[in-house]
C-alpha cells in the first residue's frame, strides 16, 4: 500500500507536560490503523494535531500526499479530507437525521436556499454506505447514543473523506452495532478511505486492525501487524507492565444476604427478577444493551420503582421509592454514563468527591468545615490511587480512568453496604481497568455486596463470584465462572 500520511518528529508541550515526544507516525492509504495507549498516553493529542485542533511545536513535519506542512489548521485538515468522530458527539438533537448528515452541504453552494432534495439524496446515499437503515426524517434526539454515533460517522461521508479518525467509537455500542460499524469501515476501505481507530477493547483491535501503533507517555513504542501481537504483549507495550487477574476471594457461604429481590417486575422493562447478593459477594450481570439490566439496577436504587415484587435489604423488606431512601439504606449506584450522570465536569475535583457526603462536614450553624473536607478528599484520592494535579482542578482535566475513580470514590464515601456498578470500565484503559478490578475485590473483602453490570463477559467472568445473564428483561442463565464459561456464554448468547 502506498504511503499516505507521514508525521515526523512531532512534539507537543502543554504547560509543564510533554504530551508528545518526537513522534514519528505513518498511515498507508486505505489501511485500517489502530492507535492504542493508556489514558493520558498522548493518543488524543496526536489526533488533535492531525485534525488541526492543536498545533505541534516547530520542527515537526506532517506530510500528506507528498505535501509537507509544519502544522495543520482545522480548516486545512478538513480540506485534506480528514474527519474526526469524537466521543462527545457533535450532533443537533433537534434536527432530523438527514439534516444532521447533510448539514455540511449548505456551505457548498452559494445559494441561500436549502435544496431539500439534495439534502435527502445525499443523506440517503451516505446512509446506504454505512448501512444505516432508518427513517431520515427522525429527530436525532430520539435515537440511542449508539445510533447517534452512526449518524455522525455517516455525516463524515458527506464531502470528501480521505481519513476517518474514530476516537473510541465502540465504547457505547452493542456487539451488533460494532459489527455494523466494522462493516461500514470495510466498505469505506473499499472506497479508498483510511481509518484510524482508537480503542481499548483488545478483541476488537485484533478483529479490525491491519496495523497497530502503540503509544505510551507521549512516545511511539512501535507499529506492529496484529499477527505479531497478542493480548498480553499489547498490554505490556501499553503499560510497560504485565497483569494477572486474580479471581475474587471465596465468599463465606454462611454470610447473610445484603440484597434479595423477589419476583421484581416492571412492565416493558424487566420481569420476575429474583436474585440474592451475600455479604462480600460480587455478582455479575451481563446481557446486551436493552436487556433491562440498568432498569433493574435503578429499581434497586429507588430511581425506577418496580410495579410488583419485593426488595429485601439485610433481611428486612424495604420499599425504595427514591434514591434518597436508597442512600439511607446504604445502597450506592455508579451510573453507566459518567459524563452525563456521574461527574460535574466544570466543578473542582474536591467538590465532586464530597458531593454525596457534604453533610458530614457541616458544623455549628450549618457552616462547612473546609479543612476536614479537604483532608478527607485527600485520603479518598490516595485510597483510590487517583492521579490528579490538584484537588481544586476541574474534574474535566482528569483522564477517563481517573474520572471514573472519582465517581467511585464519591460513592464509597457514603460507606455503602451494597454497591451497584453499571459498566464501570467503559472507555478507560487497561491499567485503570485493572486497578478498578483490584478495588472492587478489596471492597468485597470488607463485606460489601457488589453488583457488577457489564457488557464485557471477560470482565464479569474474571471478577465475579456468580454471573447472571439477562435477556429482554429476564434472567435467562446463571453460572459460576470457570475456564469454560466464556465459550459457553459466547456460544449460547452470541455475546461476542
Amino acid at each position, binding site marked *: 500500500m502506498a504511503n499516505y500520511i507521514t508525521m515526523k518528529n512531532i512534539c507537543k508541550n502543554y504547560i509543564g507536560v510533554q504530551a508528545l515526544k518526537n513522534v514519528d507516525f505513518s498511515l498507508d492509504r486505505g489501511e485500517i490503523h489502530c492507535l492504542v495507549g493508556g489514558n493520558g498516553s498522548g493518543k488524543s493529542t496526536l489526533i488533535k494535531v492531525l485534525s488541526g485542533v492543536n498545533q505541534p511545536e516547530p520542527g515537526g513535519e506532517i506530510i500528506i500526499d507528498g505535501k509537507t506542512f509544519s502544522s495543520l489548521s482545522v480548516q486545512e485538515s478538513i480540506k485534506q479530507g480528514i474527519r474526526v468522530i469524537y466521543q462527545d458527539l457533535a450532533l443537533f438533537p433537534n434536527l432530523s437525521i438527514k439534516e444532521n448528515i447533510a448539514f455540511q452541504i449548505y456551505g457548498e453552494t452559494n445559494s441561500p436556499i436549502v435544496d431539500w432534495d439534495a439534502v435527502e439524496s445525499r443523506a440517503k446515499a451516505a446512509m446506504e454506505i454505512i448501512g444505516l437503515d432508518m427513517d431520515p426524517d427522525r429527530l436525532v434526539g*430520539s435515537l440511542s447514543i449508539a445510533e447517534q454515533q452512526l449518524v455522525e460517522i455517516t455525516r463524515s461521508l458527506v464531502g470528501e473523506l480521505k481519513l476517518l479518525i474514530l476516537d473510541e467509537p465502540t465504547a457505547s455500542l452493542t456487539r451488533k452495532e460494532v459489527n455494523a460499524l466494522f462493516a461500514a469501515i470495510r466498505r469505506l476501505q473499499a472506497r479508498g478511505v483510511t481509518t484510524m481507530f482508537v480503542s481499548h477493547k483488545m478483541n476488537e483491535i485484533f478483529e479490525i486492525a491491519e496495523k497497530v501503533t502503540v503509544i505510551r507517555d507521549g512516545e511511539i513504542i512501535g507499529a506492529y501487524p496484529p499477527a505479531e501481537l497478542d493480548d498480553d504483549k499489547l498490554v505490556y507495550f501499553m503499560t510497560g507492565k504485565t497483569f494477572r487477574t486474580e479471581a475474587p476471594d471465596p465468599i463465606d457461604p454462611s454470610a447473610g444476604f445484603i440484597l434479595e429481590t423477589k419476583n421484581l417486575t416492571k412492565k416493558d422493562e424487566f420481569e420476575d427478577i429474583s436474585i440474592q447478593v451475600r455479604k462480600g459477594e460480587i455478582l455479575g450481570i451481563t446481557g446486551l444493551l436493552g436487556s433491562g439490566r440498568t432498569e433493574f439496577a435503578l429499581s434497586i436504587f429507588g430511581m425506577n420503582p418496580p410495579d410488583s415484587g419485593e426488595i429485601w435489604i439485610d433481611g428486612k423488606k424495604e420499599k425504595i421509592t427514591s434514591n434518597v431512601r436508597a442512600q439511607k439504606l446504604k445502597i450506592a449506584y455508579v451510573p453507566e454514563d459518567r459524563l452525563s450522570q456521574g461527574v460535574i465536569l466544570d466543578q473542582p475535583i474536591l467538590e465532586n468527591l464530597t458531593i454525596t457526603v457534604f453533610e458530614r462536614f457541616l458544623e455549628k450553624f450549618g457552616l462547612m468545615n473546609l479543612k476536614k473536607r479537604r483532608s478527607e478528599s485527600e485520603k479518598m484520592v490516595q485510597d483510590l490511587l487517583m492521579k490528579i494535579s490538584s484537588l481544586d482542578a476541574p474534574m474535566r482535566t482528569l483522564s477517563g480512568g481517573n474520572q471514573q475513580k472519582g465517581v467511585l470514590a464519591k460513592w464509597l464515601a457514603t460507606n455503602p453496604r451494597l454497591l451497584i456498578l453499571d459498566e464501570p470500565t467503559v472507555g478507560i484503559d487497561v491499567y485503570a481497568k485493572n486497578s478498578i478490578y483490584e478495588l472492587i475485590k478489596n471492597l468485597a473483602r470488607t463485606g460489601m455486596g457488589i453488583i457488577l453490570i457489564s457488557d464485557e463477559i471477560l470482565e464479569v467472568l474474571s471478577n465475579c463470584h456468580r454471573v447472571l445473564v439477562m435477556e429482554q428483561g429476564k434472567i435467562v442463565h446463571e453460572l459460576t465462572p470457570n475456564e469454560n464459561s466464556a465459550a459457553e456464554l459466547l456460544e449460547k448468547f452470541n455475546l461476542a
Partner: protein
Amino acid sequence: MSKVKSIFTSSNAFLVYLLVVMILIVTIINPNFLSAENFLTILRSSAYSGIFAIGFLFVLICGGLDVSFAAVATVGQYIAGKVMINAPGTPWIFVVLIPPLVGVLLAGFNAFMIYKLNAPPLIITIAIQNIVFGVLQFVTQGRWLSNFPKWFNEFPLKLVVSTENSNGVLYGLSVLTVIWFAVAAIADFILKKTVYGRRLYAMGGNIEAARRGGIDILKYQMFAYGFLGFCSGLAGLVHTMVTQTVAPNTLIGNEFYTIAAVVLGGANIFGGSGSVFGTVMGVIIMAVLTNALTIMRVPAYWHQVFTGGILIASMAVTAAHARRAYKKG
C-alpha cells in the same frame, strides 16, 4: 399515513384545538363574540405584537434571549415621530425606514456584546433595556407625541378586503394585519427553506456542534438579533399607526406578553425549536383570550390570571409532546 397522523397530534394541532375550544366557550357565553368583524379587529390590534413575536422567535430558535425589544421599538417610534412632527414634508418611505433601521442597529449591538462578553443574553438585554429606557425618559421628559401627518393617519385605516356590516359600517382585513402576515410568511420561508434558518435551528440545538461544523456564530447571532431588531422597529411603527401617539412607556413593560405568546406557540425557551405558524397561533390565542375577557367584562387583573393559566396548561401539553417525540421519533 404518518404525515396525516402527525397533523392531528402535533403541538401545532393542539394550538388549533385550543383556539377552537376557546372560541366555542366564549361564543356560548356571549354570542356577540363570534363574528368576522370582531375577529378581524383582533387581528388588526394584535398585528404589532404578532410582529414582535416573529422576531423574538428567531432569537429563541438560535438559543438566545432578548428582553430589550420593546425598548428598542420605542426608540424607533420616538425618532420617527419626531421626524414626522419636525419635518412633516419628509417622504413617507424615509419615515417608515427609520424604526427598523434603529432596531437593527440596537439589536446588532446586543448581539455583538453578547458574543464578545460571552455573557448571558438575558443579562445583557436587561442592561440595554434599562439604559435605553432611562435615556428615553431623560430625552423625552415623558412627553407624548401626536398630530402626525395626514398620510400617517390614513394609511392604517386602509382595508385590503372589505365589506359592510348590518349597520352599514365598512370593515375588513386591515393593511396592518397584512403587514404582520407578510412578515410571518417571509420568516417562515427563511426558517424552513434557507441555509440561514436551518443554521439558526442548529445553533439552538447544539452550539458547540455548530461551532465545530464551521458556523460563524457571531454572524448568525447578528442575523437573529438583527431580525428581531428589524421586527421590533416595524412593530413599533405599526403600534404607532394604531394608536397615533408615541409615549415612552406604553410598549416597555409588556415584553412578557410577547414572550408568553411565543412560548405558548410551542417554541422552546432554551432554543432549537419553534415555528412561525405556532407563534402566530400563540399571538392570536392570547389576543382572543384578552378580547373575550373584555367582552365578558372580566376585570383586567383576571386577564393576567387567565394568561398565566393558559401558559402553564400549554407548557404541560408541550412537555408531554416533546417526551413523545423524542421517544418515538
